[in-house]
């Protein structure tokens, strides 16, 4: 026990001596959280829109105004000819363009159908899809109102217009804030980046500097060395987790509906995996540059395949199968479940079990490899 305590003490001393490491350990999670909390916004509003009104009648101006009042489209430019739309789209300054044809007003008046051309910048596929459905809504409502007006004018008193009104109820995140989706995810990211990096770099550096051998000739046993080296990083991870949960709840008002203790407990389970991966990387890397590149090589796929930003359900089946071996994926379900849905252990136990299995296997293999390399 004493020798483990000594190694822990040495690790903490080493961490504290490097002045630059402190802000990286405890400030950078907060900065990442703030950045993501404010920037990660996929809401599509104020799509930059160009209007090309070839009719210039009262009716066409009224339609354009209706489009712009919706809040989804922000007027970027008004052009006189359809050809003038090209440069706006090429530079990405406009993502939507409405072309109101000549005769717009007269045709509507005479009851002839009017076709409004909607030009969409498909390069921004996301905004395009959402913008098109907004535009379709506006056009359908406009048509309906026109029909009703005509009815009124011709005076058919007995007829009342039938219609369907959808009542949307959105579960778990009623205001549909992207923030509530992303901020809990930062917890998982920070834990992974921090513990994996610290472990892999910490071990490789000792080997590069030759101090690992010095430790080995002391009476300290390899397992004591491993435990002593990893425990401080667990501490750093836990402190970061508490910081992130605190800022998420108190600053961003992301609901924490479930139990914080359950969350922290499962963070510990998740860290088995990240520490194990860090240790594993240190055993396959000769120098710090290799360790870093290898760590990044592990991290980027884990992040992108975990459902952090891109829904796993949308991935093609082979890739979806691949995500089942990404431990981060299960941790995301846990983090979001506890934060947003208030899930208890009863609903999360299978994810927790998966994480535990991953953790034991990965950490176990790495420890074995590490010991073999030491001997």
């Amino acid at each position, binding site marked *: 026990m004493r020798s483990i305590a000594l190694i822990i003490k040495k690790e903490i001393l080493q961490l504290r001596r490097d002045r630059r490491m402190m802000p990286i350990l405890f400030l950078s999670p907060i900065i990442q959280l703030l950045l993501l909390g404010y920037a990660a916004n996929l809401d599509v*509003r104020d799509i930059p829109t160009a209007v090309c009104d070839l009719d210039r009648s009262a009716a066409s101006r009224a339609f354009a105004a209706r489009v712009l009042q919706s809040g989804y489209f922000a007027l970027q430019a008004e052009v006189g000819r359809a050809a003038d739309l090209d440069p706006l789209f090429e530079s990405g300054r406009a993502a939507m363009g409405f072309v109101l044809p000549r005769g717009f007003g007269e045709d*509507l008046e005479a*009851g002839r159908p009017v076709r409004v051309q909607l030009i969409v910048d498909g390069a921004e596929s996301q*905004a395009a899809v959402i913008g098109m459905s907004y535009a379709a809504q506006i056009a*359908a409502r406009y048509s309906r109102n026109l029909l009703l007006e005509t009815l009124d004018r011709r005076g058919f008193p007995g007829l009342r217009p*039938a219609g369907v009104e959808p009542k949307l109820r959105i579960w778990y995140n009623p205001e549909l804030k992207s923030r509530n989706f992303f901020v809990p995810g930062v917890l998982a990211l920070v834990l992974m980046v921090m513990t994996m990096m610290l472990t892999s770099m910490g071990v490789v550096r000792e080997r590069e500097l030759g101090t690992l051998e010095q430790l080995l000739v002391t009476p300290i046993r390899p397992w004591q060395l491993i435990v002593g080296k990893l425990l401080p990083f667990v501490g750093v991870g836990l402190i970061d987790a508490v910081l992130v949960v605190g800022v998420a709840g108190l600053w961003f008002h992301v609901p924490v509906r479930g139990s914080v203790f359950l969350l922290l407990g499962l963070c510990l389970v998740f860290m088995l995996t990240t520490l194990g991966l860090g240790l594993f990387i240190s055993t396959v890397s000769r120098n710090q540059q290799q360790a870093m590149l290898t760590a990044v090589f592990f991290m980027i*796929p884990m992040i992108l*395949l975990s459902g952090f930003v891109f829904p796993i359900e949308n991935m093609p089946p082979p*890739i979806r199968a691949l995500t089942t071996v990404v431990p981060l994926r299960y941790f995301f379900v846990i983090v979001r479940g506890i934060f947003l849905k208030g899930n208890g252990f009863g609903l999360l136990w299978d994810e927790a079990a998966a994480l535990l299995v991953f953790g034991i296997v990965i950490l176990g293999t790495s420890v074995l490899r590490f010991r073999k390399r030491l001997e």
Partner: protein
Amino acid sequence: MSGRIKPIIKKEFRQIARDPRTLGLLLLVPAVLLVLYGYALNFDVKHIPLGVLDEDRSASSRDLAGAFIRTEYFDAAARPRTRVEVDRLLGEGRIKSALVIPRGFADALAAGETAEVQVLLDGSDAQSATTAAGYVKAIVQDFSTRILVKALSRKGMIDRAIPLTLEPRIWYNQELLSVRFLVPGLIAFILMVIVVISTSFAVVREKERGTMEQILVSPVKPHELIIGKTVPYMLISLVSSHLVLVFGRVLFGVGIRGSYPWLLAVIILFLLCALSFGLLISTVAKTQQAAFMPAILTTLLPTFILSGFIFPLRNMPAVIRAVSVVVPSRYFLSALRSIILRGAGPAAFWDQFVGLAAFTAAAMAAAVIRLRRERRRGEG
């Protein structure tokens, strides 16, 4: 000048070649990542599992349910019998949306009233839910307008078609595949991360090993050292970015619409920018660990979040948008999308070009100044 730069380039190349894994990572990782993500990453919200609870069981209610399922956006995944069952299915995540058509739906429509239907959406993925909510409103609005037109023409009161229809014309990406939107972003993301990280080690490693002093006492000037250290990485990353372009073309059909020389110019400028930024980190840091952390923190997350790769810049608060001004991949990405997807000429992206050039010049100057100071310290 070339007399002194060449040996440095040669030495740097030899050092890279001696470490095949690093070379392999530099060359191949970008292409591998592109292949993986090109397939995996996808914003397309389609085939949302929908549960339909039809309490009315009338022709009209079946019509409305059919209007949902006929689109490629919703798939009928379950037919719950009660509202409790709807809640359970949503809670378990078996369905992500539910349509509840209450009893009396058809009667209300026949009486010319506004009938209400309930649509439940799982909002934990705000992104998909927003898109789904848009589809729902558009489908229902369209349904309403259609039954109005039908009712009117049946009664023979007004005989006319739907007055105004939209005719969407999608430019640049007709199928609206999100992969086309994401590939240029992936190129920027991957290049930025890999290049900055690998070069951030270039100088600091020499410092840690003590070989830096040997170089500093030699007649090599700081700018020569910088150029000599940059050129090899530049060539390697040029090769890897072309691999990425070829893979993007072959596997995802993301061809280059614009002019290749301009594309090349923008890529070279961006690589220069990333390289000089990496070198700057390297000259500031004292240890490799101290170099790595800033390298990863200033590239991974900012490029992911603040470049417009995934999150549109225009939606961000003004403060965050101001921060994004110093994220070089932002300019690169914007220019890439213009050239690759939209086939635009320099008039469309010259401002991005200038932004990138300014950033490159600043980073490079800072790196040279840092090195010069170090050298003076070495002499003193």
